[in-house]
């Protein structure tokens, strides 16, 4: 940092560790921040759209992830730069809230910033640019609401939901099986959705991935899947009319929590103790039996002694079931969690239609599936695939699709994809720009230009000539006043996205614009960067 000097030319310290601090000020700071943000967005740009490419990310441990999900890419990249991190958070926040459009939001922010850079060069004040963007964003969000369409669906007719899910899956690696995957996503969401309250509890959907098998083998199980096996290999593998007890106490003699010491001073006492222990085991088993349970699910382990007794008494058991899963089972089966054996009773048991243990291919891996539960709204997707990477990516893609379906249930308004919504917004924003006085006009127009970047990137990624395609579509939209015209990425022969059935949720799209504008304002407003060490 720069120094201050006194009468005699002696420099003096104003800040602590002044020498170690680096400072970038003014336009230079904005430029360097914009550069960093643009670098991030240019990485994601090629992942946009149905023909978007994947990224391969290798982390420090050598684990490989292949994905084209924007939020995942950015998260795994471990971005260091402070401003670039803002974009990472931007993408994550879109992911948390909407679950889809994580790439688009970053590409849009990058486009807005590169437009802003041009305006900065012309000497427009950064805050004015940001304010212009905000004004433009309001117009665009309103336009989206105007061109939005309402999708009607019922529990019986889910085809609109499925086609939305398909749009989302289009850009993913699993797009070969998109119709099946889309159906799984829709079924999963609908089974846990509360259509009256328009609420979807995602905690009720579990996702289990097992490498092996084919992607087509992915299935949706209504019930809960536990990545566990029966505690003894000879226990029965399939139980019907299950009455299960959920225990949070181990199958062993109870221990007081207070520090204790048992003094054994005679042989008799020792034998008594041994007898007591044996009694505990038999009593426990008896209590379970008496309650009428035919399956034991335990949060803790039990030793061989207990295991053996359980087997003898024909009580199948599952051990080491985590707290969260235990809770899920409790909700699904209507069971109460039992903290000690003496509280076992029939009404505290849970019921399920069927519990079975399944094995996968030739591997040793087993899973327990609890089906037909009493209050069954919990579902589990078992995702299969050729290798771990595919399974992981399929899980992410399915999650994205489910998020989209959820959003539709919450709010059934949609806009059409393929860049059509962006083009429509761009047109309305630039029309609005002409009515605005002063420098804001430039910023608003720049916003419109930035919106064009999305269809441009889409066309580019599909191998089309981007400028030509955009110009075509734009003029067509203007001519026919049809806001559903977009970039024909899949060469389906029509530009009308409504006919192609490519749509996205309205809230998702609106959120994209709003979030991107917010972050851009934040970046533009920084004119001074003070850091310890070097600021790259």
């Amino acid at each position: 940092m720069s120094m201050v000097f006194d009468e005699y030319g002696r420099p003096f310290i104003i800040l602590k560790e002044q020498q170690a601090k680096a400072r970038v000020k003014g336009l230079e700071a904005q430029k360097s921040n914009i550069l960093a943000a643009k670098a991030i967005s240019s990485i994601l740009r090629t992942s946009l759209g149905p023909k978007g490419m994947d990224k391969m990310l290798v982390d420090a441990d050598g684990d490989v992830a292949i994905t084209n999900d924007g939020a995942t890419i950015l998260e795994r990249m471990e971005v260091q730069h402070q401003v670039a991190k803002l974009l990472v958070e931007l993408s994550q926040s879109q992911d948390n809230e909407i679950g889809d459009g994580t790439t688009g939001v970053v590409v849009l922010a990058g486009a807005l910033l590169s437009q802003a850079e041009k305006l900065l060069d012309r000497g427009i004040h950064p805050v004015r640019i940001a304010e212009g963007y905000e004004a433009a964003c309001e117009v665009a969000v309103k336009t989206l609401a105007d061109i939005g369409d309402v999708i009607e669906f019922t529990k019986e007719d889910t085809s609109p939901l499925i086609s939305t899910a398909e749009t989302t899956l289009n850009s993913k690696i699993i797009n070969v099986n998109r119709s099946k995957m889309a159906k799984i996503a829709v079924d999963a969401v609908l089974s846990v959705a509360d259509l009256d309250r328009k609420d979807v509890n995602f905690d009720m959907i579990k996702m289990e991935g097992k490498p092996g098998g084919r992607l087509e083998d992915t299935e949706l199980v209504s019930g809960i899947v536990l990545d566990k096996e029966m505690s003894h290999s000879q226990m029965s593998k399939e139980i019907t009319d299950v009455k299960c007890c959920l225990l949070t106490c181990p199958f062993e003699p109870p221990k007081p929590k207070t520090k204790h010491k048992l003094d054994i001073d005679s042989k008799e006492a020792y034998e008594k103790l041994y007898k007591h222990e044996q009694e505990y085991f038999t009593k426990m088993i008896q209590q379970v039996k008496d309650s009428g349970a035919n399956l034991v699910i335990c949060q803790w382990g039990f030793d061989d002694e207990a295991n053996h007794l359980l087997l003898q008494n024909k009580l199948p058991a599952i051990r080491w079931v985590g707290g969260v899963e235990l809770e899920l089972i409790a909700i699904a089966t209507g069971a109460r969690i039992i903290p000690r054996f003496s509280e076992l009773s029939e009404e505290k048991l849970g019921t399920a239609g069927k519990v079975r243990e399944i094995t996968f291919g030739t591997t040793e891996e087993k899973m327990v599936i609890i089906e037909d539960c009493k209050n069954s709204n919990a579902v589990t997707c078992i995702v299969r695939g050729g290798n771990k990477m595919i399974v992981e990516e399929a899980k992410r893609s399915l999650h994205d699709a489910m998020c989209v379906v959820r959003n539709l249930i919450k709010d059934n308004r949609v806009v059409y994809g393929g860049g059509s919504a962006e083009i429509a917004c761009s047109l309305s924003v630039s029309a609005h720009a002409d009515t605005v006085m002063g420098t804001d006009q430039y910023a608003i127009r720049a916003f419109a230009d930035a919106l064009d970047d999305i269809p441009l990137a889409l066309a580019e990624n599909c191998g089309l000539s981007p400028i030509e395609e955009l110009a075509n579509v734009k003029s067509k939209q203007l001519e026919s006043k049809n806001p559903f015209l977009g970039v024909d990425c899949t060469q389906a022969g029509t530009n009308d996205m409504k006919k192609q059935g490519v749509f996205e949720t309205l809230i998702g799209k609106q959120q994209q614009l709003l979030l991107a504008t917010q972050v851009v304002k934040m970046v533009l407003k920084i004119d001074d960067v003070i850091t310890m060490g070097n600021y790259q």
Partner: protein
Amino acid sequence: MMGNMAPGMGRPGVILLREGTDTSQGKPQLISNINACAAVADAVKSTLGPRGMDKLVFDGRKVTISNDGATIMKLLEIAHPAAKTLVDISMSQDAEVGDGTTSVVLLASSMLKEIKPFIEEGVHPQVVIRAMRVATKMAVQRVKDLQVPFEGEKGREMLLKCAGTALNSKLISRHQDLFAPMVVDAVSGLKDDLSDLNLIGVKKVPGGEVRQSFLVRGVAFKKTFSYAGFEQMTKKFSNPKILLLNVELELKSEKENAEVRITDPDQYQSIVDAEWNVIYEKLDKCIESGANIVLSKLPIGDLATQYFADKGLFCAGRVEVGDIVRVAKATGGQVQTSTNGLSAEILGKCGAFEEKQVGDERFNLFTECPSEHTATIVLRGGSEQFIEESHRSIHDAIMVVKRSLKSRAVVAGGGAIEMEVSKYLRSESMKIEGKGQLIMQAFAKALEIVPRQLADNAGFDATDILNALRKKHFHEEGGTWFGVDIDTGSICDTFKSNVWEPSINKINSLSAAGEAACVILSIDETVRNPKSEQPGAGGGGGGPPGGGRGGGGGGMSGMMGNAMDIANNGQRSGRLGKGVKYMKGRGGG
């Protein structure tokens, strides 16, 4: 190197202090202090006003992006002893008013800058200080005379405008329409004494869009850590009774160091049972009290969770202290430290309780509380940084509203009040004899820094605007409230355009800035113990007197670099540059 050391080679200096002690005194010391303050103010001045910019400060661990003067000053870690005074006044402004933390620093440094020529020409600092004190007093009095008092029914409108003005310069300025009413509602919900701002909780939920932020009239806090069985609890109550505890509800040993000796294996079970009975007894007492919701500062274990779930209660353990206190205030409950002797009086009541999903998190909401003393603002935003800054801005706005509720008088912002006070001081100065006249004029000129900087930050020609303002204030009727018009780059009646600030804000910043300037002017010697110096900090500055020459040389070249730097930096630091050059001339000669 040292001011009092003769430059001649022959005469050795008398060493009074321990070797390495850095002393400087007299006029040069004063000047260098003033320069240090100018440098600090330089760092924050661009954040002023609606077109102010943000600073990104990275301290090696954490990033802060802010536009709040006090926050930036704190993060800069200022080490210069005199310049620290500025940090202090910024902090005190923050604590006292909450807003105007940048302008107070600017005012102080501007005053010092205007006084500097007088010091250089040999006016005694005490004379300056005396005159400054008078000027400060008059300025404060003038603000008090000019302030527009609140009228009862218009109160809310006034508060809204004040909150809006406070938010103007912030990142969330576009969303004033959302936040200003939110803040005003939150503050007006408080009891009359307004003393405890902790009663307004601000919760941050990353994700979502800033406009999804909302106000809860009541208490809201994040779902706490929960055990298995939590999901089976009832999550919605109307008219629930709330039991607040500071008790651990877990199956555990009652006494830390106790040890049980069991001699007979038959007794074993009885010990186990005894422990269970202790916890069950506690749980039963909670239930018997008639409560529907049990909240505890300490953990509520899985056993208790499941037990409560069975009985249809809701419980949450490890609730933060602030949240518990807010719940207690809102619902009228009392926090209990034991489960013995629970009675109906100590239970809190509220109209509705619900667990609700907000973005990724789940929140416990207590609403329709009987004594509406608390409010919670839930902030949303695209990134953590964004929310952090929103939080700071909201804090500022809350403080401003609180102060205006208390002082119930406002003045117009946008530099209008400063111009008017400046005009007043200028005309009053003519009535004073002696040096005081000049000092008061300098003080008046110093006040103009606020409109000047506002215009500068917006990228307008500050001199033009300042001249227009002077003309308006001096020569035209009804020009009292004319300030900088940020939108068009001219001047306007800021009172009419709703740029309102609580007058206490201005009074506080004027007097704080005046005080600080006086303090800095009264210092004529700094003695710095060598050990307090950071190792390696400052080129030749901290060196021992023996190495003075070499150090000085280093300083010189550094200074040259700095002068170049300033030349390249252009207008903004131009003033400082001139000062340095001027000093160099004197020091060298």
